[in-house]
């Protein structure tokens, strides 16, 4: 791998070019740089550590074994392209897996003082995860990419495959739904 003083921190696209030529060292650099980031988005979508680790691994192995599919001429940003790879694997995984614990059976909580304390932090987090899990896939994606991952709206829109305006609409609907559910199921009004 070409690692002289000027390119000691090659960008992702340069690494991809080297990977395409078969450099396993470049692959290792890329994995060390990004495995946690892509694990994180997988975990936010599949809600399970082991599954998220498997998905991150599978995505990187596909990248390595099908490295010739990366086309530098397209000028795509590596992370944008790879987010799509990981997200597709997450949705494949969700399709294959039986839907589990949902929040449909939850009773709305009466809003009265003191009840807030009864719902411990863990339960609140589980509820929040449940609400996010029930969002339509593209709304979930928009929320995770923009709010939790802090991507620019332009990049997030490219990953989701919509225009920026449509992404805003997805974000707005996601947050409105979450706010409504939080108001309904969690004590304390507007949370």
């Amino acid at each position, binding site marked *: 791998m070409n690692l002289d003083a000027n390119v000691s921190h090659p960008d992702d696209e340069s690494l991809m070019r080297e990977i395409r030529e078969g450099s396993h060292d470049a692959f290792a650099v890329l994995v060390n740089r990004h*495995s*946690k980031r892509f694990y994180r988005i997988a975990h936010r979508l599949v809600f399970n550590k082991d599954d998220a680790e498997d998905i991150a691994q599978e995505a990187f192995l596909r990248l390595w074994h099908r490295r010739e599919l990366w086309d530098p001429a397209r000028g795509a940003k590596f992370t944008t392209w790879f987010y799509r790879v990981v997200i597709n694997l997450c949705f494949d995984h969700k399709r294959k897996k039986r839907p589990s614990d949902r929040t449909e059976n939850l009773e709305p909580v009466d809003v009265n003082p003191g009840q807030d304390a009864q719902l411990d932090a863990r339960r609140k*987090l589980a509820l929040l995860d449940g609400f996010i899990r029930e969002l339509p896939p593209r709304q979930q994606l928009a929320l995770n990419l923009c709010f939790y991952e802090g991507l620019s*709206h332009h990049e997030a829109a490219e990953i989701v495959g919509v225009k920026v305006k449509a992404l805003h609409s997805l974000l*707005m609907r996601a947050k409105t739904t*979450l706010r409504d559910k939080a108001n309904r199921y969690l004590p304390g009004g*507007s949370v």
Partner: protein
Amino acid sequence: MTMDLKEFKKNVLAHGSDLGNWPEQIRETGQKALDGAAELRALLADAERFEGVLKTRRYEEPGEDLAERIISASVKKEKAPSTRNGFFSELLQEFWLPKPALTAVFVSLFFALIIGFTVGFLNSSGYVSAEQDETNLQNLLYYEGEVL
């Protein structure tokens, strides 16, 4: 340019409660609208609380050796020759169906089998009784004897 409540609310949902993160072209208008309306300030405070709740969401950290595992798996997988089992499991994966569809296929096959058996038993044209079988044998013997 002004920003009414509805537009302000939309922008808060899309860009967040921190006006510093809003796109430059709407930030100033948003700030002016905010300065002049208590209603918008209340809306913003509410959005901040809501975002605070969203931010409490946690995720489990991956194993420390995640990157290492991926790198070594990439080497192993390349070295491993493809086995017959691997081939069949890949083939099965290609034709994998969701559980309800798989159940539907099995139920259809089962009913097709039952219908097949029923039709087979009801259709007596190919059925030969023991008595008939004996007569046929006698005819054959008689016939062959004549030839001989």
